């Protein structure tokens, strides 16, 4: 308890709080601009942070990290362009709601879900970090493989109707993931002799392309279509009322809790990350929706404006932020690529994350933890302010100008990750590919999941088998690897149950 107070004391100085709030505003804006994400923001910011005192630098990073995951939902809902990869799924139901004149409600659900997910996981971080860190340690190569399988299997639930296209998308993602060093042999593959691809396609510019550049092309098509029909440019939806009816809140609580729980667990596991959390939470919410509400009067179809479709991924992605700090602060193991950048920021100030951080720099360690809680509490007003002011003015920019601005930001963002011009080509090509995929109705989600999970799948499979000396049964060994066996079992159910249900005679309605 003294330690927590120490954290509050460190945080409660005007400059540190100011930095936290600045970070929240910055993160919200960075997140809401397609093409720029928290990774890029940190890459640009870390060198500057060297000149700042560590408490201020880290408070600012916490603010950016928390808010970027929320900000991504704003353009996802308003223009169906996810601002960050973590709001990929929010764009479906969120934008459908916006098109039906409920943009304000969708945004409000997104923010409230984010804040609730964030607060729950901050509380978990505050009180249970050390005991949960040992759970992260139970995840070895075998468990990581099973987790990747579970993540890929969650896609099945999302693929009603176009299983083949979903499979194609996943295969595209997995294939692109094989570019670069083979973890097994150490030799580069499919790099076509290009040194820039030796470690794989650079991931940050790839995401910039898939979300930012592709959105750009979409907007351009919109503009051309309007011109051809000689229509004035179609307006972006009005944001409207941000109030959430009480009945809706009651209905969403279970979704928030389960989304936050999924985000908490996934966030702690190194190598899983936000994308897996949103897919699992979305899949879980879809099942619940079909069981309780689907087909009832006044209910939309899933994917066409269901509030759960916004609430689940948004509560999960913000729960990941704080919980990804559990293994980072207590063991020095980052939960995802963004939290890994905290290691760099800490190292610049002569601190090494891990158990020693709490004994040597307890004030900073506890300040970071407390900052997550405070950041999530402050995020609510900040988010509404940003939506009412900045977002409103951004989306009132004429579409033609918006295209130019997004284009510029995308390429600057891609370049600034490593100051390498090759990254701009990556963003451009990825954008074209994503655009073609959208034209041909191949879903982007499974491709991204394949891209993220591919390397984990390959190296954890290889390493599990190296350690087990080629014994494939380790993955379903209930005694030595119960966690893995459980996850494989659940994955199998995800595949089998829909098939079996198809063959069962339909109940009379």
């Amino acid at each position, binding site marked *: 308890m003294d330690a927590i107070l120490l954290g509050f004391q460190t945080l409660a100085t005007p400059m540190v709080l100011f930095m936290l709030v600045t970070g929240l505003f910055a993160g919200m804006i960075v997140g809401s601009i397609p093409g720029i994400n928290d990774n890029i923001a940190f890459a640009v910011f870390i060198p500057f942070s060297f000149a700042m005192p560590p408490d201020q630098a880290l408070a600012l990073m916490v603010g950016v990290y928390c808010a970027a995951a929320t900000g991504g939902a704003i353009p996802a809902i308003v223009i169906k362009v996810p601002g960050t990869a973590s709001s990929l799924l929010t764009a479906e139901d969120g934008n459908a709601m916006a098109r039906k004149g409920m943009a304000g409600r969708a945004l409000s659900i997104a923010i409230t879900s984010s804040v609730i997910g964030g607060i729950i996981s901050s509380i978990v971080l505050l009180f249970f970090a050390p005991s949960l860190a040992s759970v992260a340690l139970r995840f*070895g190569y075998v468990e990581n493989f099973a987790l990747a399988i579970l993540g890929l299997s969650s896609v099945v639930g999302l693929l009603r109707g176009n299983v083949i296209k979903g499979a194609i998308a996943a295969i595209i993602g997995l294939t692109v993931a094989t570019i670069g060093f083979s*973890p*097994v042999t150490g030799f580069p593959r499919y790099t076509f002799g290009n*040194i820039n691809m*030796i470690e794989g396609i650079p991931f940050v510019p790839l995401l910039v392309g898939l979300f930012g550049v592709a959105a750009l092309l979409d907007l351009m098509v919109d503009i051309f279509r309007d011109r051809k029909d000689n229509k004035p440019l179609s307006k972006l939806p009005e944001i409207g009322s941000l109030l959430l009816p009480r009945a809706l809140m009651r209905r969403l609580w279970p979704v928030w809790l389960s989304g936050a729980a999924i985000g908490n667990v996934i966030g702690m596991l190194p190598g899983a990350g936000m994308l897996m959390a949103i897919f699992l939470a979305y899949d879980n919410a879809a099942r619940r929706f079909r069981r309780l509400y689907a087909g009832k009067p006044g209910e939309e179809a899933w994917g066409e404006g269901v509030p759960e479709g916004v609430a689940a991924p948004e509560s999960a992605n913000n729960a990941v932020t704080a919980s990804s700090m559990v293994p980072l602060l207590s063991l020095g193991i980052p939960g995802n690529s963004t939290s890994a950048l905290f290691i760099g920021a800490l190292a*610049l100030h002569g601190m090494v994350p*891990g158990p020693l951080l709490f004994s040597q720099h307890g004030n900073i360690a506890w300040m970071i933890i407390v900052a997550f809680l405070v950041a999530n509490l402050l995020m609510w007003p900040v988010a509404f302010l940003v939506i009412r002011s900045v977002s409103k003015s951004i989306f009132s920019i004429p579409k033609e100008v918006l295209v130019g601005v997004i284009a510029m930001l995308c390429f600057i963002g891609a370049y600034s990750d490593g100051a390498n011009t090759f990254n701009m080509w990556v963003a451009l090509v990825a954008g074209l590919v994503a655009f073609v995929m959208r034209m041909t109705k191949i879903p982007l989600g499974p491709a991204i999941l394949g891209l993220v999970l591919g390397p984990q799948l390959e190296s954890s499979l*290889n390493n599990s088998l190296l350690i087990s000396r080629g014994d494939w049964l380790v993955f379903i060994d209930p005694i030595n690897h119960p966690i893995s066996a459980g996850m494989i079992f659940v994955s199998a159910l995800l595949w089998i149950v829909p098939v079996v249900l198809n063959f069962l005679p339909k109940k009379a309605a």
Partner: protein
Amino acid sequence: MKNLALVAALGLSALAMPALADDYPQRDIDLVVPFAPGGSVDTTSRIIAETANSILEGGELVVVNRGGGGGIVGQTSVSMAAPDGYSILAMTSSVVTNPLMKGATYSIDDFRPVALYNLDPEVIAVPMDSPFETAQDFIDAATAEPLSIVVAGIGTSHHLSGLAIERVTDMTFNYIPTSGFGAQVQAVVGGHADGALWPMGEAMAQAQAGGVRLLAIAQEERNPDFPDVPTFQEAGIDIPIFATFRGWAVPAGTPDDVVATLSNLMQSVYEDEAYRERMTNAGFVPVFRDADAFQAVISDYATRTGAIIEEAGLGQ
């Protein structure tokens, strides 16, 4: 008119003159870190630049991150830069192995070493609850049957250190390539592998925190922070030193006096007590070796790893 021409001619000749140490530097110097911000090379470079800029006159040392291609993009850019002392590479051991294994187009001779600031010896680390209490336990077990050993990746200097150990002993290893130090800690502290070959800089914090036990360190003398941990030679592994290095290099052809100025700058940085404390806190043992001594370290590493790479068939 005549005067103007004279002034122009003088100006041109001043530009064309080779940089003399007296008037070097006249502008900012790029210290190219061939990785993204936040890694060990970036961190150490920024700590150095901070102290260096309090000493340096005439220009500032500016850390420039030029990432991509596992360091090759930034390394290549410096190998092709003008040899005028305004482009410095934060040079790591990978400059030696990248042309051999990863198809980098530069050669190690395209660089001229300036000074070394950190040597990171290899250590053998095992989980805290491992049955191997001593280096001898470990050696006996690895001699009886292959042990699963976590390394940063196939073809990394840590994998090469394992191959070097196998060459001089009867031990055999089952290499488990795991990228990212965090994931490696997870594998070792969580007991999913038998042990790891790690750089001391990163292993130290885990060992001090009691997550892992160090069995042997590949350097000539015992580490003062770990007086009970034997050197490789004391443990019966005949490798006097196996260490990755971090230092400065400039493009080949850079004038002697410029190299001397930079080497002296690094020495002055090293003599600053606050600098040494910052480096130590960040997990890096500060050292200083001048250009010639650094060249010797590089040559030794090149000979040692060249033979291993060839034997293991890792070259391309």
